[in-house]
């Protein structure tokens, strides 16, 4: 299955790719978003697997500076996440909230927590059981992009939906 075919069957993915092309870090070395992975291996994942979630749905959303509002592009991603999570109910879910480095450490722990909570609340509103959802904040302690400019900071202001093992 070719890359073009995978992309045309998946219009949301194209939107994601376009969005990341605008905000993406020019010097990133490793895939650090769903869209990056999707370009490399969409379609290979078994439906319902964690890889399927990361690659075909998109496991993360991004935020504006010092904000925990769910942007329109993020709402699209989270709606897809909710649909998938409601289909595959075997997963427990941990939402990681992160901040960029342009804030002080303690404040950013709180900001990351607020982003994780906003993400959780959105998924709950879309029907995902609150019992399955936990949140954790990493503040600015776990950056994925490590250059010192705006394109990196925008990738680090994120909430990542992680599947913490099947069967719970």
């Amino acid at each position, binding site marked *: 299955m070719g890359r073009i075919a995978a992309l045309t069957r998946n219009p949301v993915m194209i939107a994601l790719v376009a969005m990341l092309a605008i905000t993406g870090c020019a010097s990133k070395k490793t895939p650090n978003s769903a869209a990056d992975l999707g370009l490399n291996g969409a379609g290979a994942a078994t439906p319902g697997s964690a890889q399927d979630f990361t690659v075909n749905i998109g496991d993360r959303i991004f935020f504006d500076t*010092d904000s*925990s509002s769910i942007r329109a592009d993020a709402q699209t991603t989270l709606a897809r996440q909710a649909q998938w999570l409601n289909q595959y109910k075997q997963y427990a879910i941990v939402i990681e909230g992160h901040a960029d*480095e*342009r*804030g*002080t*450490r*303690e*404040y950013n*722990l*709180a*900001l990351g*927590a*607020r*982003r*994780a*909570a*906003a993400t959780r*609340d959105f998924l709950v509103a879309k029907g995902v059981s609150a019992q399955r959802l936990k*949140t*954790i*904040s*990493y*503040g600015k*302690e*776990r*950056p*994925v*992009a*490590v250059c*010192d400019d705006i394109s990196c900071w925008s990738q680090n202001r994120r909430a990542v939906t992680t599947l913490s093992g099947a069967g719970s």
Partner: protein
Amino acid sequence: MRSFLKPLLTIAAMALGMTAAVPLPAWALVELNVNKGNVEPLPIAITDFQGGDALGAEISDIVTADLKRSGLFAPIDKSAFIEKISNPDAQPRFDDWKVINAQALVTGSVGKEADGRIRAQYRLWDTFAGQQMSGEQFFANDANTRRVAHIIADAIYERLTGEKGYFDTRVVFIDESGAKNARKKRLAIMDQDGANVRYLSDGRAIVLTPRFSPNRQEITYMSYESGQPKVYLLQIETGQRELVGNFPGMTFAPRFSPDGQKVIMSLLRDDGNSNIFAMDLRSRSTTRLTNSTAIDTSPSYSPDGSKVVFTSDRGGRAQIYVMGADGSGQTRISFGDGVYSTPVWSPRGDLIAFTKQTGGEFQIGVMKTDGSGERILSSGFQQEGPTWAPNGRVLMFFRDANGGPKLISVDLTGRNEQSIPTSNFASDPAWSPLLE
């Protein structure tokens, strides 16, 4: 006998103004720093302590480094010395020291006692007045050589400035190593000059924001060791650890109360906002101090324990607020153009240090406790987290540049910035109190 003593008195007078038992109006300090901050460092000669072989020179070097880094002293190079001190208890030839403009002179000796302890003594001389200003003797075990030197430096600093010294102090901090996206963070403790580093955690879990208890025996800090980030207590000597409180969500940003009986910290609410709580360490009872749908964090008590300064974004962006220790009368005090966080109350009670983000920069500054008189002491691309030296004259913070954070100190004039040597990257410094 004319006014040769004057330079000494200038510093002493300045110092007395800043530590007067009767509090001066707070503006006096700010004015002093703005207008008279450019104090000419006092030329001082510190001779090698006699006896003890290399030990004598080591003590002299540590005293010299402490005084020099304070920015208030200009130690004279030993190669300029004329008189070779052979008996540190005898009156020196003052003329030999005056001619090299050493306005103060330190002599001393060090030796082993019969019981194995080190005995160190110093004398401080005013060369232009031609008299001894102070002299003291200290005993310590072998392991404490550096500490004895710091105590002597403190005594000299105090005699010449009229202020408490801060050299016999330690700093807890986060030692950082490894790539930026996989940083290993360890709790560590060292002397204020970067010597005697000791690790207090193994680096398996992220640890952040350590702070000393008033008796210097414990630290409170935040760790991810249980999965959820939580506030812990650690006994430094025994290594014994315990969780502070049993809260459902993340706890963070801890600090001790000045009496050491409470830890004040932020607790994450289920709605994603954070409020400030104080927990009594004996009764384990907790008191909620803020209840806002905002981020309330980084609480810090005033030294008398009656007030708390903290960060909140309840007004939109993060600003500094002050409230009573019971949560009453929450009042915003920062109104400048920018985002304010990490407020820390000075041990003197007169100032609040903070981090301010404005114009793409991170600044370290101080303001009076009502928010007026803001002064920026240091600016940089990425720096934050001031902590006070126990005498309230020097701040330490961390600056992220060249791939990772390093520790920096700056005095209240903003003119004497020094980097603290650490072998790895270092962040979140917290200065110990003085032992009474």
